[in-house]
């Protein structure tokens, strides 16, 4: 159809098919600010545009419907303030506010939020926070927890009204603690805190300006000419043998370039888990196989000229299945006579995996003498807990694009956390040497562990090899729910021995982990459940030195969607059980829940109890934990939540005027890890340019977490320049040093140490040259005495040479050299962050509906490099953890058919239903890192569920052992009815 669209006040005459969505038309025209969440029901809002000033999902309207209306996109709002000789208006006030407040993490939803804010402020110049939240409710954000985007809109509104707004820094937040900490976290520094110039400051993210403009930055934005679109035919059965596939009709469909089945490609067994060599898990996966092992498993691949043709081709493939009995219930997976899911002869065991028993991983750890510990206890507590499969729900789906470059090397542009693992692991699958593969990671629209998987790159790559053409493969949202790699569901049995005084004498956990159809991360996730959650409470007195801990785990195969890595990596599962158990013990023995916990937790300079027993399938080595800020975390958190006024206060528990409502507070104490010791390695390279700017190249993978920014801050601090002088680039296997990728809470610690080391090398060479230049001026100074600060090299007596002079001298004038440094880092320790998570809830005792009113998290993550990005991690993590606590789960029926396939049924929290959240950082100086950091990204995932569970118990007496905490489960507990018999994968 011939139409004219008015986009950003410019008319575009177009010919479009009647069925083309506005989203597709606009992206074809190059409006890349409009993102594809692939929800197709308007639930995610990533594709928001303004139509006649109203935010609307462009995926849900036809282009022809938009004719005659004004369409606005972020491209028309603002731009970089300095475009060479051309003066611009700079960023729009709203965009600037998003940059300043740290409201941008992955940036995938940012343009949509900015447009929505513009629409709101156009109608309502002085919105309340409630109005802002209501407006932003149409845009799902999985990164931020909405706290900072909401504050960004309020800040922009104030500026547009002509009001002065405070700086976003610690001093301003401290002046107005009641609302100041809504953007800037509360900071409790170490006693001898000395402020740095760049480290420790709320520097705007280095990628914020491009993301807020919606610049092409994500994989989908880099389409190639002559590109084919891939689709995957997926199994309708949970367990079946493919007896025959007829692709002849599909292959003859005009526009189809390739159809591949298992018969067409080499049969190479591998693991999709993106981990270091050697993979600590079984090799049990093929790109395509003659057997399908879950509903959604791959059957065939198609590449075609358009997505519609590819879809039509899928519909023309005839498959004859021999349906096999599935294993759905993990408790039955190892029973005698259970169907064997992996009977392929190519299966490669790792450690104790045993495919003949559907066993992907087995762990048996005994520390001390557990049985003796139980005999020494005055009380034994036993309970069984259950946690569900949870989806990462990143808004940008998995997407990969492949092509042959001019050197006949395969280029894979992909939204991944692990570009170097993708290259290494796919090489044998594709029949290519590593040197002929280049993996480029552009910006990633959220990942949270879900993209620590070599999940889809092979689909596009096989089709590029088959056709010789560029291929893009983008999973639909339904495919994400059918076939991505969500969190492992587990059943956890706990047995704890306790003395009358609250001393834990022994603790035993058995964990049955459901890895689904493939064993990706089976061993390491289950191991982490024990390694972190069971390590925190060692006991007191003699038990502190010689704790009695047993951790046994079996990770079993089932015919359900495979599990994988997800923020927390097994630890949230463990802490749900541990912290619910400890609450029960405290209440039964009439112990103060906080004192009881602190009595038994790890303390500084104690040995990590698991460090001598287990290390992700590798040789364990003893580790001493030097910094534990847990007591201060508890002190800060209890004050912020008002624990002393609420806990045990009967009056407070009642809600005036509503007899059916009861309030409660709960707590959970937590520890996580910081990288994998002796294994995780990150590299960095820094070179100095003519103007004394620096290129920092890192293999580390910024997923929106802000790691590029904090690495840049560490480099800037070391080199004595502002962050704006550091040009950060990540990651490209051809261009950047190796990094194992973004996982295990390692980037700030490992890649940060590598960056600092590289910067120290560069700084040393700058100082050496500076000393020579000073000498030429008659100033004698040792290189080691020179301070790099404010873009200058300074002598102790105050003389200075600018870094620019030094750079020009080095590159052009005398004894020329490229000042640069390359370094890498691997750590012998994994210093745990610690945290106290508090929750306040209201329970409707008639219906069991739980409303979470407030979350407070006090975190010891060592020294905080960037309070805004770090608190953004905590807020976003708490929001995800809140979903895990009350609503997020993936349920299958007895035939393995999934219930959740979209964001309608799989509900993630929206801006207008979030509880109040507060973040407090309790700094400690971790000695194993040059700036004293520990990790922050994962620990916020660990404690919300048990804190909410404990708060529900406090509110109404309902003691839950399973999450999510569903209204019916609370209601049944209150009415002493049996639990529902549900099948959960």
């Amino acid at each position: 159809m011939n139409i004219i669209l008015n986009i950003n006040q410019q008319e575009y005459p177009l010919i479009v098919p009647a069925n083309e969505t506005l989203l597709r038309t606009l992206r074809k025209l190059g409006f890349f600010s409009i993102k594809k969440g692939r929800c197709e029901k308007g639930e995610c809002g990533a594709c928001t545009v303004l139509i006649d000033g109203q935010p609307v999902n462009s995926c849900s309207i036809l282009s022809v419907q938009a004719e005659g209306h004004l369409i606005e996109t972020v491209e028309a709002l603002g731009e970089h303030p300095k475009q060479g000789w051309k003066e611009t208006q700079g960023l729009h006030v709203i965009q600037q506010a998003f940059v300043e407040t740290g409201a941008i993490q992955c940036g995938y939803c940012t343009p949509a939020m900015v447009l929505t804010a513009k629409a709101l402020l156009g109608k309502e110049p002085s919105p309340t926070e409630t109005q802002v939240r209501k407006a932003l409710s149409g845009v799902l954000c999985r990164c931020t927890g909405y706290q900072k985007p909401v504050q960004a809109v309020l800040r922009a509104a104030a500026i547009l009204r002509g009001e002065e707004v405070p700086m976003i820094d610690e001093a301003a937040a401290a002046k107005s603690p009641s609302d100041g900490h809504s953007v800037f976290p509360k900071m409790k520094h170490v006693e001898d805190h000395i402020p740095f110039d760049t480290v420790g400051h709320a520097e705007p993210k280095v990628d914020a300006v491009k993301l807020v403009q919606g610049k092409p930055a994500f994989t989908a934005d880099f389409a190639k000419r002559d590109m084919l679109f891939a689709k995957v035919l997926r199994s309708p059965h949970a367990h079946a043998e493919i007896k025959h596939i007829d692709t002849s009709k599909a292959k003859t469909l005009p526009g189809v370039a390739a159809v591949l089945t298992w018969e067409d490609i080499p049969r190479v067994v591998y693991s999709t888990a993106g981990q270091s060599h050697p993979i600590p898990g079984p090799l049990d996966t093929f790109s395509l196989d003659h057997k399908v092992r879950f509903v959604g498993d791959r059957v065939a691949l198609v590449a075609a000229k358009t997505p519609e043709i590819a879809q039509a081709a899928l519909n023309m493939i005839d498959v004859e299945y021999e349906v096999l009995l599935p294993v759905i219930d993990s408790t039955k997976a190892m029973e005698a006579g259970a169907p064997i899911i992996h009977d392929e002869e190519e299966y490669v065991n790792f450690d104790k995996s045993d495919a003949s028993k559907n066993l992907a991983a087995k762990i048996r750890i005994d520390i001390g003498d557990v049985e003796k510990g139980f005999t020494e206890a005055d009380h034994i507590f036993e309970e069984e807990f259950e946690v569900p499969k949870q989806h990462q729900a990143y808004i940008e789906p998995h997407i990969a694009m492949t092509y042959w470059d001019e050197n006949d090397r395969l280029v894979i542009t992909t939204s991944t956390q692990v570009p170097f693992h993708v290259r290494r692991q796919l090489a044998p699958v594709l029949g290519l040497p590593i040197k002929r593969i280049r993996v480029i990671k552009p910006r990633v629209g959220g990942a949270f562990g879900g993209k620590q998987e070599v999940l889809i790159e092979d689909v596009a790559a096989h089709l590029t090899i088959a056709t010789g053409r560029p291929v893009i493969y983008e999973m639909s949202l339904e495919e994400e729910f059918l076939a991505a790699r969500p969190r492992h569901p587990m059943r956890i049995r706990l047995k704890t021995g306790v003395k009358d005084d609250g001393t834990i004498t022994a603790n035993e956990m058995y964990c049955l982990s459901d890895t689904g159809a493939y064993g990706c991360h089976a061993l390491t996730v289950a191991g982490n459940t024990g390694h972190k959650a069971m390590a925190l409470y060692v006991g007191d007195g003699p038990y502190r030195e010689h704790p009695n801990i047993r951790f046994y785990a079996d990770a079993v195969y089932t015919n359900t969607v495979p599990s994988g890595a997800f923020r927390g990596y097994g630890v949230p599962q463990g802490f749900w059980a541990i912290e619910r158990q400890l609450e029960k013990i405290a209440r039964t023995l009439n112990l103060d829940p906080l004192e009881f916990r602190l009595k038994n937790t790890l303390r500084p300079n104690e040995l990590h109890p698991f460090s001598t027993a287990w290390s992700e399938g590798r040789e364990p080595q003893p580790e001493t934990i030097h910094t534990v800020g847990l007591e201060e975390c508890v002190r800060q958190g209890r004050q912020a939540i008002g624990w002393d006024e609420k806990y045990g206060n009967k009056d407070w528990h009642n809600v005036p005027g509503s007899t059916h409502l009861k309030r409660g507070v709960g707590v959970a104490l937590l520890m996580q890890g910081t990288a994998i010791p002796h294994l995780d390695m990150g590299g960095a390279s820094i070179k100095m340019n003519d103007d004394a700017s620096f290129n920092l190249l890192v293999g580390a993978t910024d997923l929106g977490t802000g790691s590029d920014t904090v690495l840049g801050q560490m480099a800037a601090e070391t080199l004595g320049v502002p962050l704006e002088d550091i040009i950060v680039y990540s990651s490209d296997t051809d261009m950047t040093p190796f990094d194992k990728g973004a996982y295990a809470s390692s980037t700030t610690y490992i890649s940060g140490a590598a960056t600092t080391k590289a910067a120290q090398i560069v700084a040393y060479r700058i100082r050496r040259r500076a000393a020579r230049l000073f000498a030429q001026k008659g100033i004698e100074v040792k290189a080691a005495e020179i301070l790099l600060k404010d873009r200058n090299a300074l002598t102790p007596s105050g003389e200075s040479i600018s870094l620019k002079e030094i750079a020009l001298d080095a590159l052009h004038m005398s004894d020329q050299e490229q000042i640069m440094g390359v370094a890498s880092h691997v750590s012998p320790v994994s210093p745990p962050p610690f945290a106290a998570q508090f929750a306040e809830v209201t329970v409707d005792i008639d219906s069991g509906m739980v409303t979470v009113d407030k979350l407070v998290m006090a975190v010891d993550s060592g020294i905080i490099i960037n309070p805004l990005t770090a608190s953004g991690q905590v807020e976003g993590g708490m929001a995800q953890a809140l979903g895990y606590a009350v609503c997020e789960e993936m349920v299958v029926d007895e035939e393995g058919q999934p219930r959740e396939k979209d964001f309608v049924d799989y509900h993630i929290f929206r801006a207008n239903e979030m509880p109040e959240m507060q973040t407090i950082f309790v700094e400690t100086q971790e000695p194993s890192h040059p700036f004293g950091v520990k990790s922050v990204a994962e620990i916020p995932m660990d404690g919300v569920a048990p804190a909410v569970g404990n708060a529900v118990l406090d509110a109404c007496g309902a003691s839950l052992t399973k999450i999510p905490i569903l209204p019916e489960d609370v209601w049944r507990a209150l009415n002493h009815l049996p639990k529902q018999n549900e099948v959960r994968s």
Partner: protein
Amino acid sequence: MIDEYFRPATVKEAMSLLNDSSKHLKPLGGGTSLSHKKGEQFGVVDLQNVGLDQIELSDQKIKAGVMVRLSAFLGHPGVQPEIQRGILIDTTGNIRNAATLGGWLISSDGRSVFSTLLLALDTSLTWEPGAQRVQMGDWLPMRRLESPGVLMTEAAWWAQPYIVFEYVARSPKDRPLLIVAAAQWRSGRTRIALGGYGEVPIIAMDGPEEGGVDVASRDAYYDAEDQWASALYRREVASKLALRCLERINETKESEA
């Protein structure tokens, strides 16, 4: 797949297109059902210019054209606050800017608060041709099977009754597992609609007085079991929430007295 597109300027033109049996055309409300376009080939008649986008109060009723966007109900002074609260639970900001009343009635399921409220208020629907008026309670169960006409043009519901609802969900803005909506007329007529389950909301009770709302609600959801909640839970909690709705209505009456 949509293969043709028309944008008529009047209802008459729209009717002419929709009545043309040579074309396989469907009305296009906007914003709610594009996702169902896969599969069959059909054309669409975009109703954005036909003028069915007004809300008016007359004869003690709120009359809304089917092209009224859900966002328009939020700012309208005549629309009951509980209706506005229900729309806020059902929809996101973006969806209600595009979704229309007609589109919502056609596509929403039993877990819609808005639809449950309209059912409780004994909403009537006008269909063309013939300006036929059909009660929502009669139309909903047959919605997928037969249509009273080719084009729904208006929904009208009582403005005067007290209307309240209670709901249960996993989070405040999640799709409800259970909705109890109670409407009470000045005459004492009390009508209870239940939602949170199944394809459509249902009527649990419509009587001259309020007695028995708990029993009626319990009975109406006797078999309301699915993967989201058990029938036992729904019926027992519906019973309690029905009584709570009445309490709220009575509190409102007392405050007015």
